[in-house]
């Protein structure tokens, strides 16, 4: 495992502490991602994986009590959730939310144009947007018909995860934090989603933080680094071989 320190720092988390409903979940978590890297965080239930995702995304109720997180040179934790998105952060939800009555395309066009506005870019026309949306939907095997339906309403588990990837493709973030994007996927969907992550995010100026229980997504999306999260902090880091070791030996030995 070598690390090129010349590379641009994408995300730098230092000694992050966070609590939910008065209970401390993150207990001094430190992690650095450079542009061009894919990192995987693995860990048992209750280690704080989802809390890390939501804290970095700025979800209300996830209170930072100490530490820092710098994203692309900015103080991430000082930004509101929509500002984090405009700065180039994308959250892939473990349980994508259903929003009755709000169509995917309408919401995504508004979201993308709102991001562009915050960045001082001109908004896309309906035609320009639809072209991008169609290309991303095609690549992930989601029909435009589904993309016109209400956000995630009536979607199967696999369709919801594909829809997350379509959204990621349309919004084209710098950093994606994907929380158990592999959960609820069958083998075929896993491959489609894995290909989507590689296609959209494996680029020299982007980075990915994959949060997962299992090795299986990592067969499709090869991480450069693997970290083990246990009781609120990173207890071990290594290369891709660490994921295999975890698969063999379980988390118990690591956390001890």
């Amino acid at each position, binding site marked *: 495992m070598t690390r090129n320190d010349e590379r641009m720092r994408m995300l730098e988390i230092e000694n992050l502490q966070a609590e939910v409903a008065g209970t401390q979940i993150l207990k001094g978590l430190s992690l650095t991602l450079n542009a061009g890297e894919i990192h995987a965080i693995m860990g048992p239930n209750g280690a704080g994986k989802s809390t890390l995702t939501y804290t970095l995304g700025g979800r209300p109720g996830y209170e930072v009590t100490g530490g820092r997180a710098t994203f692309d040179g900015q103080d991430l934790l000082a930004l509101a959730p929509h500002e984090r998105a405009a700065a180039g952060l994308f959250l892939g939800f473990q349980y994508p939310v259903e929003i009755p*009555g709000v169509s995917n395309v309408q919401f995504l066009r508004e979201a993308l144009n709102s991001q562009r506005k915050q960045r001082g870019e001109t908004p896309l026309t309906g035609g320009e947007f639809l072209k991008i949306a169609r290309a991303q939907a095609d690549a992930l095997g989601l029909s435009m018909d589904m993309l016109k339906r209400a956000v995630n309403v009536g979607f199967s588990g696999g369709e919801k995860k594909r829809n997350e990837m379509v959204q990621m493709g349309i919004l084209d973030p710098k950093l994606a934090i994907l929380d158990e994007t592999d959960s609820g996927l069958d083998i075929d969907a896993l491959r489609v989603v894995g290909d989507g992550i590689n296609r959209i995010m494996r680029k020299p100026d982007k980075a990915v933080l994959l949060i997962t229980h299992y090795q299986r997504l990592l067969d499709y999306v090869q991480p450069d680094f693997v970290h083990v999260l246990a009781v609120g902090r990173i207890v071990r880091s290594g290369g891709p071989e660490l994921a295999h070791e975890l698969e063999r030996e379980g988390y118990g030995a690591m956390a001890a």
Partner: protein
Amino acid sequence: MTLPLPTRRDEAWRYSDLDALASVWPLAAPERIALGAGERHSRVMIETSGGIVVRDLVIELAAGARLDMHLLNSGARFGRIAIDVTLGSGAEFNLGGVQIGGGEQVLEIITTVRHAAPEATSRQTIRTVLGGQATGTYLGKVAVARAAQKTDSAQSVRAMLLDRTATANAKPELEIYADDVKCAHGCAVGELDARGLFYLASRGLPPPQAKALMLHAFVAEVFADMEDETARETIEAAALAALEALL
């Protein structure tokens, strides 16, 4: 002789702004709408101006007549729309109502739907969005006479509170004397789904825009079945403007 001013003891005025009412009392005679047998009519009411608005409608639908009403009650300091409908045999009454209010507005829709004869249908869909210290009320009575077998009536009433200081009152009420009827009613008061708002924000939408998107979907359902596209666009645009003013 003028009628005495109602008091809080009158169920139909229980949540009203009686001081505001006193300033416009006595009320003008109700507006009467009568549709003859088999006649069909649609009516759109958009009440977005300020001040005190008290509308009183008495409607009679003869056998097989159909009236579709869509209304937006959003502008008045005290805005009351009262509708009393009597349905003849096989008649159909559809009401879609949206109320949007903030500040100290008091908005209410009060309906009495009288199924007087068999096989009539009534549908009421009411969506209310309230912020600040506003009060929004729906009191809806469905009275089914003994002769009105095969009545089919439905009330769907939902309110969304944007602030904990706002108040929604919702009372679907059934009075049924026939024994072969279908009378559905559902009623819910809630807040915007925080998970949905965060999801939208995480994609880049600022909170007011995310809320507007969700609230627009909440009320748009009421107007979705309007056949006159121009009228639908007009009332939707007025509702959206009222929502945006609230956020």
